[in-house]
């Protein structure tokens, strides 16, 4: 109860503190301000002096460490945790915007009940009833319970969910969301497994690299651990003795990574693997590069006709040869397989081919060929789209009595063809743990809002870790703003009623659970003698990590073969003349960022457009179809159609159109609702050849003018930046 009260004091005091003042800055001053001091002040609270707490960022699965600046008990700023070995004090745009996850006006306060799904008519119930309903349903459903989770879910929560499901003999949780799919997490991990023997996300060290070939890897914007790659890139650009690495980027569209690259090659969509194969071939046949490279290349290079490959990829052969030589000659050459390739039918082949380049250059990514120490901590394992499909099948077959959904938004993120919503209709009870009403919550019966990540405990075993294992700790930094409850505690409460679960989950609350988990951690970089101190330091430093080890990853590749597979695309060339290039927005990522005004209102780096979604076209395309900026286009694929505004840009291939993911929400709060369109609706539910990934990068589309037009909310002057001063 102190919590609740002291929270209100926080606000009041904050509102009254001489330094604050909403809109009071320059308007005539309010003469009488009420000062409400704390009833019981929290420890080391000094009014007007900032206190900092370390926790984990949950805006994407990377698990960066952040520190939160608190003034009078209100979180006012997020910064990267300078101690944290992953992001080293840095943070990306999405991380910076995290505070609005905490203070979002549309967050739910207390559990909600929806009588008829999709009606959006919720009735508030109190927590006891909510938890009770969950318990009843769980007891009734028995093993016919399923759980669908997202990659940003805390690992401890995953563990609790798994334990609960295991206790009722239900299949383990399915962890899947669009973000990891667009990042190709699962596919790449599998490829690494085939190449190096350990299926984990690769982490490429760029700091000392001479040459970096990035195959559609948007590693400076959204791919896996973008912040860490930013740090790496910074070092890469200013190496000792004025050395400055060479970055070559292969992608059909100019992403911000392509912009920063020294050499950008606009390759045909889905031809990343082909490029890599051709490079291998050239190195092998041309006997290029340092000693031994050609030999190992010969062992791996696929059999292909280089001229033809070059033609298919859209690179002049000379350029390809030049690049092959550069790569082969470089002492420290790195090839990065991006998320984009994982979405195309030949994803695994491409990943292997690209990884083969690393094998040739003798630079294995960190974290895939060294088995990390067992930390005794549970950690999420991502599932493939195939697993989701089987879940959907079970739902459709009525084998699922109750579906739990946490930190993922399938109703928005899954293509219509996956048939999730139809299957959902077969599930008697759907429970959503979303903090806000998102598209999925609209189709659920019971909402038990979880706290935002700045209000709750947890930990994240960082993946990809760059060499040495890292566990980021998560702790509440403010007293909860809304009457939400941590799902961990909810589950533990429910578990008490189920004997098997009670046995498997003996903790009285999640803090207790975490403490016991943390107690088992090996020695950390910081000193900690007693178990208590260990826990305290774990929270204080923002996680656990061993003293920096200098053991460079040793290369132990498994035998594997590289094949030159062509990517296949839905839709024939005549009806659907353009390739569709889908990419996660730098700001909105896969759409979870769309709820935050900070991310909506900040202009996208490439188009400077805010608040809207768009279709990127090549000027030639625009000329052919007589399209101007802002024309609303009907984009049709074999699987669906959306309407989006055109944005003409030279930064894309003439045969390709690009649409960012992230907009087109029907729900997810006032800032996301009804803006732009959701590109996922254009995708099919087909799988990739190998690895069971969603083939989201294998669709062709047609464009048609609707005749309508909207004003583009862009910051740039199109005339200015395109025609400029008009020197010819």
């Amino acid at each position, binding site marked *: 109860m102190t919590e609740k009260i002291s929270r*209100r004091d926080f606000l009041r005091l904050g509102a009254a503190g001489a330094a604050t003042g909403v809109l009071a800055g320059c308007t005539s001053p309010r*003469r009488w301000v009420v000062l409400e001091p704390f009833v019981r002040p929290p420890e080391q609270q000094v009014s007007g002096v900032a206190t900092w707490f370390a926790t984990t960022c949950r805006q994407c699965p990377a698990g960066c460490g952040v520190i939160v600046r608190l003034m009078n008990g209100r979180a006012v700023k997020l910064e990267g945790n300078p101690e944290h070995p992953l992001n080293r004090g840095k943070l990306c745009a999405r991380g910076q915007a995290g505070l609005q996850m905490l203070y979002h006006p549309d967050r739910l306060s207390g559990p909600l009940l929806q009588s008829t799904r999709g009606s959006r008519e919720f009735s508030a119930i109190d927590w006891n009833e909510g938890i009770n309903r969950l318990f009843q349903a769980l007891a009734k459903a028995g093993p016919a319970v399923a759980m669908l989770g997202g990659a940003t879910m805390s690992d401890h929560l995953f563990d609790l969910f798994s334990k609960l499901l295991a206790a009722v003999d239900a299949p383990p949780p399915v962890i899947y969301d669009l973000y990891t799919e667009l990042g190709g997490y699962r596919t790449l991990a599998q490829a690494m497994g085939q190449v190096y023997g350990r299926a984990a996300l690769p982490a490429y060290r760029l700091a000392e690299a001479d040459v970096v070939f990035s195959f559609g890897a948007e590693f400076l914007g959204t791919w896996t651990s973008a912040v860490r790659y930013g740090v790496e890139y910074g070092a890469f650009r200013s190496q000792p003795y004025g050395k400055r690495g060479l970055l070559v980027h292969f992608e059909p569209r100019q992403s911000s990574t392509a912009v920063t690259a020294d050499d950008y090659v606009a390759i045909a969509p889905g031809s990343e693997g082909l490029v890599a194969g051709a490079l291998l071939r050239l190195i092998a046949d041309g006997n290029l590069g340092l000693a031994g490279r050609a030999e190992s290349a010969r062992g791996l290079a696929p059999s292909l006709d280089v001229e033809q490959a070059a033609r298919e990829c859209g690179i002049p052969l000379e350029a390809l040869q030049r690049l092959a030589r550069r790569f082969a000659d470089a002492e420290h050459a790195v090839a990065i397989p991006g998320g984009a390739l994982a979405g195309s039918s030949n994803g695994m082949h491409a990943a292997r081919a690209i990884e083969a380049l690393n094998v040739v250059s003798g630079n294995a990514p960190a974290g895939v060929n060294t088995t990390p120490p067992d930390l005794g901590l549970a950690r999420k394992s991502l599932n493939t789209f195939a697993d989701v499909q089987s879940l959907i099948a079970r739902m459709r077959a009525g084998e699922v009595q109750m579906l739990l959904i946490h930190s993922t938004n399938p109703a928005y993120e899954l293509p219509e063809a996956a048939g999730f919503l139809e299957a959902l209709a077969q599930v008697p009870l759907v429970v959503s743990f979303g903090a806000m009403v998102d598209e999925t919550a609209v189709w659920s019966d019971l909402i038990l809002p979880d706290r935002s990540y700045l209000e709750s405990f947890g930990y994240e075993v960082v993946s990809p870790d760059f060499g040495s294992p890292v566990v980021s700790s998560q702790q509440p930094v403010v007293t909860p703003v809304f009457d939400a409850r941590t799902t961990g505690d909810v589950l533990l409460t429910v578990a008490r009623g189920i004997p098997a679960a009670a046995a498997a989950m003996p903790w009285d609350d999640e803090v207790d659970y975490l403490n016991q988990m943390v107690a088992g951690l090996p020695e950390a970089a910081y000193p900690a003698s007693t178990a208590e101190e260990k826990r305290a330091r774990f929270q204080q430093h923002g996680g656990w990590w061993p003293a920096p080890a200098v053991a460079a990853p040793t290369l132990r590749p498994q035998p594997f073969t590289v094949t030159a597979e062509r990517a296949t695309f839905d839709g024939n060339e005549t009806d659907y003349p353009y390739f569709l290039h889908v990419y996660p927005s730098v700001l909105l990522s896969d759409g979870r960022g769309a709820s935050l005004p900070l991310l909506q209102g900040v202009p996208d780096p490439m188009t400077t457009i805010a608040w809207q979604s768009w279709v990127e076209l090549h000027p030639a395309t625009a000329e052919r179809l007589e399209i101007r900026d802002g024309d609303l286009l009907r984009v049709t694929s074999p699987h669906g159609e959306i309407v989006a505004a055109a944005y003409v840009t030279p930064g894309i291939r003439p045969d390709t159109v690009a649409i960012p993911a992230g907009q087109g929400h029907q729900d997810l709060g006032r800032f996301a609702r009804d803006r732009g369109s959701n590109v996922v609706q254009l995708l099919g539910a087909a799988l990739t050849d190998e690895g069971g990934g969603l083939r989201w990068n294998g669709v062709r589309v047609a464009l048609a003018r609707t005749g309508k037009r909207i004003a583009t909310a862009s910051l740039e002057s199109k005339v200015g930046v395109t025609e400029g001063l008009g020197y010819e």
Partner: protein
Amino acid sequence: MFSSLWWRVGRFVRTSPARLFLLAGVVVAGALALSGSAAPAGTTQPIAFNHQVMVQAGVQCLFCHNDALRSPSPGMPSVELCMGCHKTIGAGRPAIKQLADYYARGEPIPWARVNYVPRFVYFSHKVHLTAGGLNCENCHGDVGHMKVVEPVARMSMGWCLDCHSKQTNAPQLRDCVICHR
């Protein structure tokens, strides 16, 4: 007294109508000159708190306003801090009963602000007390002899500038950023 004043003014004007403009000018200028500063009027506090008693009882300012040395804001004592002493001391008195009630209800005491500066002014108690070497009473007056605390100075910009120009060890308030951010 006022009537005589009016009479004087009247005569002043009557003797030469032109003076009316002069007078009007003076009035307007004066009004504008004062307009920049907020003059706090008196108000009643939720609890009839008596600083005089506390000070005479030997309680130092910093005992309650204990952030003044380490923070821009002096800090208002928490209800808990008050109760620390008043659980026993003067527990019978009505004012203390009020306090106890607040504490029991776990409610903050809605004190009314006495010394006011606008919200776009950033004043640091820490700096003035340590580096500046000032004492509380330099600005807040002899609170020790106030039953009800009232501001002794209108804390306007002119007041700051004036003091800084007189004190030899005070820096010139030349760049606005020292107070306005």
